[in-house]
């Protein structure tokens, strides 16, 4: 902490007060906070997935009850909101990946667009695997 006690010739620290709602007044700041708040939706999805697994393990009636519960308007609204936040998270995360990862191949830096594209390819692959595990008849 910058704790400075008063001395006669010491300059006083000047800090402009920033409003608690500083992120509300500019689009880019607001989007930044929305992006950060997507983490709450991530936590909710974890809870939801855990609940699903518990209910499926408890038997068919419990699974049916979970499906009924999930179509309640309040739960559905929360899940639609969570889906929107998860898409925001995925898009912002993948688009930032090139800035976070510096990959070299044969002494050349791999272009950022390629890194972002490989992340989207990963999303497509994982989604395809989930769909196949749930729906494809082997």
């Amino acid at each position: 902490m910058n704790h400075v006690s008063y001395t006669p010739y010491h300059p006083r620290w000047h800090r402009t007060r920033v409003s608690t709602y500083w992120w509300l007044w500019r689009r880019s700041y607001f989007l930044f906070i929305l992006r950060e708040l997507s983490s709450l939706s991530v936590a909710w999805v974890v809870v939801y997935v855990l609940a699903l697994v518990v209910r499926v393990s408890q038997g068919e009636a419990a699974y049916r009850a979970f499906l009924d519960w999930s179509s309640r308007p309040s739960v559905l609204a929360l899940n639609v909101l969570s889906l929107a936040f998860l898409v925001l998270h995925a898009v912002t995360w993948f688009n930032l990946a090139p800035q976070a990862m510096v990959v070299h191949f044969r002494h050349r830096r791999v272009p950022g667009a390629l890194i972002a594209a490989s992340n989207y390819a990963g999303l497509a692959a994982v989604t395809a695997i989930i769909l196949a595990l749930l729906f494809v008849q082997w």
Partner: protein
Amino acid sequence: MRNKRPIEPFLWLLFSAGGVMAALFFPALIFLFGVAFPLGWLQPPPYDRLLALVSHPLTRLVLFGVCALSLFHCAHRLRYTLYDGLQIKHLDEVINTVCYGGAIAGTIAGAVVFGLIA
């Protein structure tokens, strides 16, 4: 000094790993089980198939990893959102306890759900 705590790089590692996992797995899962099945856009898989899937050790291990890492991602991100968004960095001890404590509690709950601990 706070920024010299040796655990910080590890927390950032969990943050990024969890961010990747959440971005890869959760859009599909929440779209299917949270939106498409409840609205009747798609027929939910029959019970036996879903039971076989969530009973498989590999599914359980993968889902546990995805859930645990995502919780630490959330804890880390929420911590900094509270620091900067609400400018309450001086409450860092409370915030850290709630955020990481919640992630640890959720991870233990997940381990129980997926049968990794009794």
